[in-house]
């Protein structure tokens, strides 16, 4: 019996295979499956790479790092729980040589370094790297090749840093504990710990990292001990998560968000195509059942046919996914050195089954219809009703499921979904109102426009679906293109306009005085100057940060490191309060905090919640009394956490400042002098920021381009699907028009008018959606003021609308070939 079902299903499947609607249905399935499988394979490959990488490259069994040294008692305790312990100290500094300067990450080590793994050095740039038994001796400095090129220094020359003169004796090519830096691309230098006090940087934030050799039992003891006694410290171990894993997880989740957009479009395509598809299934089952087949047989054949459809595209999907995966691995190998292409079968199988489950959700209404309806009802081809809405609900359920699984940044996801829903509501409202008003106003006019509006109004449900489909595609495409364009252009202009061209990210009080003095001498105005101290967020409402039951996010990742806490009496001019109340001036309640809105959302915080901060080894509980957002146009230096000014009377901690200046070309050559005196002064030029930004932008561009290509592909499928769904009806309409005595040219003209109206409403919806998304997302996620370039926006949307119309007309040519005879053919 089962064999018969398969045979019948195969027969039915092969007969339908070449029909345009079935072909489009297949294309949509292929695009979605390729996307999900490739994403899954790539993610798995990287996770596996990171895991292996961690085992061999951590440079120790356990690493504890924090911004203070361990006390003698703490060190004694740690030593007791380990076989061997080694301290490295890291700080950011600026190296100068003649007229050259370069920001570096300086690491001070002793003779026992490295603890585990291999330290590789060479005696010439590009020369063979050899394992080296210990770090640099006192008086020596080792630089990485990029730094040597940047400073224009040669081996054997000396570099001045504070009171020290350091001899460049080796080139360092690999540090075994380098992995701890994650995806940090700062240039690197190694010195001996004994030289560190000579660098005049004692006030600076030194990062103390203890590399520990420990067995698994000792590792567990250390983990427990750290949680109890050093909650602000970070602990990594070989059996734990890779520092890069969270970075990748976040990237993966951002991709997940984009996949919501793609799924949304695919859902529209599948929904449009199902209008044709369901009727065919319904009719076929009705014929079988009228010939004596059971209801179960109808459902079984439908299931077999559905499965056959998926199996037939699987080989193509696997080949395309493997090729795409191979290409992506090639691209990512620049970031993850040593990453190789490898197929992981288990996640592959899981992805395939997951996507099939999603497709099954779209198919459930068909099976329910076959199960519930009688032969007569199946023949009648009822439209609408419960099944229609069940199908729509299935689409919404699938999208919600995807959003739930992939959502990384809750705020961004909410914003994107809000923009999409707003665009949908707007397009529905516009379709109804424009077509109704248009039809009413033109009812007494002659010509084809009134007729076209009349017909569109009569077919409002199917036309609205078509308009929403096309409009959403246009919106997503327009927004992606706009983001790609603006993220590069606007940001640079914006920063230059408001922040000057030199940003000071960390200056001690002494350094700030020196900087102010230098600026006065050079007649430069310090544009912004904001003080802060470093704090570690360790708990939310007394629950440790690591134990919080929330999704990984940018905010969470950043909060796990020391963050800047700003104090201020009044609301900063570049902030706006969105919830709660800012404190009164001279308040005695200094344990209050204003938290940035995105952080509130990501961590699920509310006004009245408590945050436990560790400031200079002292744990202090703060109550959140306000939430602020960035307000553009008044300088870009803003802080996630802000407290009343009274804070500084209550806590003893090193104070730092952020500032910005506008330098003229002649001032740049004076900077090395300032850095030589204050090597740890953290300043970054706009040029340097732009360079970093460009590198990031290049990566973002690649990702967005990939998505744009997929969105364009799906947009075309949606348009073709919407045409395919209405093709039968359009054909009858055109044949009837000809039977009323009109020519094919009239049908063509009507078609042009309909597509222009469709494209115009869709274009308007796209502009509105883009505008809403821009207003919501630009300011909150990119700290950019949304200032749309209307000329560009309108030209782009015009190009999209014209392309949509052209594509619509080309795809409709089949229904335009119809004549009166076609009505007979259809009848037979």
């Amino acid at each position, binding site marked *: 019996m089962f064999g018969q079902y398969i045979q019948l299903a195969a027969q039915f499947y092969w007969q339908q295979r070449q029909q345009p609607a079935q072909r489009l249905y297949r294309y949509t399935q292929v695009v979605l499956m390729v996307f999900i499988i490739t994403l899954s394979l790539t993610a798995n490959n990287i996770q596996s790479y990171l895991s292996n990488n961690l085992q061999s490259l951590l440079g120790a069994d356990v690493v504890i790092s924090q911004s203070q040294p361990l006390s003698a008692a703490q060190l004694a305790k740690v030593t007791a729980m380990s076989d061997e312990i080694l301290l490295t100290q890291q700080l950011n500094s600026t190296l100068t040589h003649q007229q050259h300067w370069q920001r570096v990450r300086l690491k001070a080590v002793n003779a026992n370094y490295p603890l585990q793994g291999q330290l590789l050095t060479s005696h010439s740039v590009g020369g063979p790297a050899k394992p080296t038994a210990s770090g640099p001796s006192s008086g020596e400095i080792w630089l990485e090749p990029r730094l040597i090129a940047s400073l224009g220094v040669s081996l054997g020359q000396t570099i001045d840093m504070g009171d020290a003169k350091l001899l460049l004796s080796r080139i360092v090519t690999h540090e075994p504990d380098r992995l701890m830096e994650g995806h940090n691309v700062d240039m690197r230098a190694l010195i001996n710990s004994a030289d560190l006090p000579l660098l005049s940087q004692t006030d600076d934030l030194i990062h103390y990292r203890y590399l520990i050799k420990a067995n698994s039992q000792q590792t567990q003891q250390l983990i427990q001990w750290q949680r109890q006694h050093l909650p602000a410290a970070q602990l990594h171990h070989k059996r734990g998560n890779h520092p890069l894993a969270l970075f990748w997880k976040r990237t993966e989740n951002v991709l997940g968000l984009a996949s919501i957009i793609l799924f949304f479009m695919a859902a529209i395509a599948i929904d449009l195509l199902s209008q044709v598809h369901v009727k065919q299934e319904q009719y076929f089952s009705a014929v079988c059942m009228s010939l004596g087949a059971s209801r179960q047989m109808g459902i079984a054949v439908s299931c077999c046919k559905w499965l056959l459809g998926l199996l037939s595209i699987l080989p193509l999907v696997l080949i395309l996914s493997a090729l795409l995966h191979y290409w992506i691995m090639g691209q990512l190998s620049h970031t993850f050195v040593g990453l190789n292409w490898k197929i992981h079968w288990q996640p592959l199988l899981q992805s395939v089954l997951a996507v099939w489950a999603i497709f099954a959700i779209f198919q459930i209404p068909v099976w329910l219809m076959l199960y519930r309806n009688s032969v007569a009802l199946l023949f009648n081809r009822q439209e609408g009703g419960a099944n229609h809405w069940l199908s729509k609900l299935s689409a919404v359920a699938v999208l919600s499921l995807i959003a739930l699984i992939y959502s990384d940044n809750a705020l961004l996801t909410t914003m994107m979904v809000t923009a999409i829903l707003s665009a949908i509501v707007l397009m529905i409202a516009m379709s109804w109102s424009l077509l109704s008003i248009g039809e009413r106003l033109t009812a007494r006019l002659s010509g084809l426009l009134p007729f076209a509006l009349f017909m569109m109004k009569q077919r409002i449900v199917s036309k609205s679906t078509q308009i929403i489909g096309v409009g959403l595609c246009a919106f997503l495409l327009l927004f992606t293109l706009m983001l790609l364009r603006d993220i590069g252009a606007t940001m640079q202009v914006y920063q230059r306009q408001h922040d000057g061209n030199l940003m000071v990210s960390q200056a001690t009080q002494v350094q700030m005085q020196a900087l102010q003095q230098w600026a006065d001498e050079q007649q430069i105005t310090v544009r912004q100057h904001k003080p802060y101290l470093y704090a570690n967020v360790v708990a939310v409402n007394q629950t440790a940060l690591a134990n919080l039951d929330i999704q990984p996010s940018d905010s969470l990742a950043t909060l796990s490191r020391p963050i800047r806490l700003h104090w201020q009496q009044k609301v900063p001019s570049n902030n706006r309060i969105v919830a709660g109340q800012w404190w009164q001036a001279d308040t005695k309640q200094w344990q209050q905090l204003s938290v940035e809105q995105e952080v509130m959302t990501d961590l699920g915080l509310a006004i009245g919640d408590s945050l436990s901060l560790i400031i200079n080894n002292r744990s202090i509980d703060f109550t959140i009394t306000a939430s602020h957002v960035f307000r553009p146009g008044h300088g870009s230096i803003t802080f996630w956490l802000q407290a009343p000014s009274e804070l500084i009377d209550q806590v003893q901690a090193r104070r730092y400042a952020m500032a910005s200046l506008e330098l003229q070309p002649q001032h740049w050559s004076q900077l090395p002098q300032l850095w030589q005196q204050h090597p740890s002064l953290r300043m970054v030029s706009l040029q340097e920021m732009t360079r970093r930004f460009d590198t990031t932008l290049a990566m973002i561009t690649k990702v967005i381009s990939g998505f744009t290509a997929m969105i364009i592909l799906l947009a075309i499928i949606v348009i073709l699907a919407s045409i395919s769904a209405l093709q039968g009806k359009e054909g009858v309409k055109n044949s009837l028009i000809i039977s009323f005595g009109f020519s094919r040219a009239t049908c063509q003209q009507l078609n042009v008018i309909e597509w222009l109206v469709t494209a115009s409403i869709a274009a308007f919806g796209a502009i509105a959606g883009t505008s809403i998304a821009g207003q919501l997302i630009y300011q909150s996620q990119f700290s950019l003021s949304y200032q749309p370039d209307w000329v560009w926006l309108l030209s782009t949307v015009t190009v999209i609308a014209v392309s949509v119309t052209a594509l619509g007309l080309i795809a409709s040519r089949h229904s335009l070939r119809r004549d009166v005879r076609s009505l007979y053919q259809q*009848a037979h």
Partner: protein
Amino acid sequence: MSCRINLDHVSQTFNAKGSCVTLFEQLSLSINQGETYAITGPSGAGKTSLLMLIAGLAQPTTGQGHYIKGQHTLPLSELKMDVGFIFQQFHLLPELTALNNIALPLKLRGDKHAQQKARHWLDKVGLGHRADHKPSALSGGEQQRVAIARALVFEPKFIFADEPTGNLDNDNAQRISDLLFHCCQAHNAALVIVTHSEALAAQTQHCYSLCHGQLQLSPTL
């Protein structure tokens, strides 16, 4: 001004799998405005092809057709604005109400009183109370009545009906044919019916039989 369609020695052939199939040859026929015609014959004889040819929607392989409009002799392609069609399958647009289906050809012609005229015709075919109903809510007979109103609402000079009662029971078929003949007569339109129904053919003034490629005037049934 009286109008007429003339077919003069027309033949229709087509190629099927390399061989030439002749549907009919050397047919001559005149259709006069205000008169009624029936074309009968076995399935596959070419009745519908002949109907298309008379309506100017197809070109004959040989021979010529003309549309005589008063004093003017025009090619058959000029006939299209003066014809109305009625199909066996009705072919009403499912999204449109009965009223809007009838108003369709008037709206296409830019008639400012399309709705009023359509309502008038709906009353005429006895469906005034079903104006806002969609085709799926109408019976076969009611759908065909809407189709007749749609074909006649713009007052064409010639009505072509292909098996107009083929999908209906005897009672409905009788009512529809009465309505059809009555409306055509009232508006002085020619009615050309392709049918298998002898009863329907018998109601026409001229009954032709198309068989083996030859068209013969049948004696009045």
